């Protein structure tokens, strides 16, 4: 009991992996994907794939060789569209009221 529940101002900040961090954010899944790839084949020939690296929400992941878009946990920041060397991302906003919503911001 007790001791564990006492607040300790010197306790290290707990480490959270990305999934745990994303769990702290509200995502209301929209009726349709607001981010899609224009041509999947274009991603196959892309060597650097900067979209995989740039997104703090890890929306772009690689499954085998294929680039997958996890748009339902997208933070709507737009860096993927800016960084894509082939301009291969159809980028838009989720429908009104859907998508990410913060508590603090």
């Amino acid at each position, binding site marked *: 009991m007790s001791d564990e529940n006492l607040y300790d101002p010197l306790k290290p*900040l707990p480490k959270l992996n990305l999934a745990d961090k994303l769990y702290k954010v509200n995502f209301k899944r929209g009726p349709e994907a607001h981010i899609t790839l224009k041509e999947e084949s274009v991603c196959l020939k892309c060597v650097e794939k900067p979209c995989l690296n740039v997104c703090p929400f890890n929306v772009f992941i690689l499954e085998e060789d294929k680039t997958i878009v996890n748009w339902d946990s997208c933070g709507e920041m737009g860096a993927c569209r800016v960084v894509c060397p082939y301009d291969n991302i159809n980028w838009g906003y989720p429908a009104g009221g859907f998508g990410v919503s913060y508590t603090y911001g």
Partner: protein
Amino acid sequence: MADKVDVIIVGAGPAGSAAALVLARKGLDVALLERGHKPGSKNLFGGILFTTVLSELIPEFLDEAPLERHIMRRKFSLLSKDSELNMEFGTEAFNTPPYNHSFSVFRVPFDEWFAGKAEEAGAMVVPSTVAEDVVWDGDKIIGVKMHGGEELHANVVIAADGVNSLLSEKAKLRQPFNGHSMIMAAKMVIGMPREVIESRFCLEKDEGSATQYFGDAVKGLFGGGFLYTNKESLSIGMGCSVHAMGYSKNKPEEILDHMVEHPCIRKILRGGEILEYSGHMIPEYGYDHMPKLYGNGIMVAGDAAGFVDASHYQEGTNLAMYSGVLAAETFLAAHEKGDYSEASLKQYRTKLENSFVLKDMKKFRKLPEFGKNGDRFFKEYPELFTELMKDYFTMSMQSKHEIEKGVIKKFLKKGKPFRFAMDMIKMIRAVR
């Protein structure tokens, strides 16, 4: 037939709500469209809310606005792997109203409150509404088209739709973004009891501090970190150029983890609890790469126009608010003449040029180029100078004279004084 209002403002952030407030007070028919389920819900920043403009719009803001702490201390910190070299300024002079017009805030409650003031004044706030395109009549913009095809018409559209501003793109006012001058930022809000924050940062009551980090905070990438105190939490985050991030070996959340685990930062965060994780993009392309700010029936304000002072002041929301005010004033003059053409709305640019908005943007116009070529400032120099300090203060049987000589010798060898001097001149030119 689509409904028609006097002005459509897209985006209920600082720019849009400021414009809506001014226009609604003049009795105009204003629609303020917001794509979030309520104003503020999509918004965040890693900054200080400067309130010089807000205090003119809403003089009672000190009592009403959901402010966190007033910033009376600013710190700049160069980090290497195991060292820090800091410069800090604080003054009691900022502890009395109006508190140097500098506050930490949470954007979700603040933006909601601010949009609420526009609504009280008579603006029609329409949440959960995405304006996806502009509506043309010949070469004139006469309204916006929503997700789903419905149209709303107006004499003028004010695009305050944020950093990605799809509307200014559809209105053919902007070029594609450049990844070097767009900053991607990741942030966490860390809950912490008030008394821990106040004792750890040497603060009393609602005093607050702001820190900017350089160097190893972001593994020497083109960018930096920030730390702000709120009432019962800290806002901590990192920002890097989208290009640098995309082509680095690290992911943003890894850089953020690296930052919060840095020995000089982790000690500050002890006893904290992660409350929120968030990300946003910041337009830092500067004065020379802004979109065209007006067209037939349209003006662009706030982040949508790239109004961000990326210098050590780190000012964005204040520029946004004033651009909203000036867009509103431009509309009022145009409305009187009944002329909403590009030629009439050109006044917007003139007003901006005569105000601190574009004067400051102009002053810091060389920053984006400097940053792009400033690798040494983000990596080499923080490492070198913390190392020189470490050498200087390392005790040994060497005489102090020898230690000093050693430090100078290392600076001459590693610092390459001529190149360093040139770099310093470039930096000074970029901020002068």
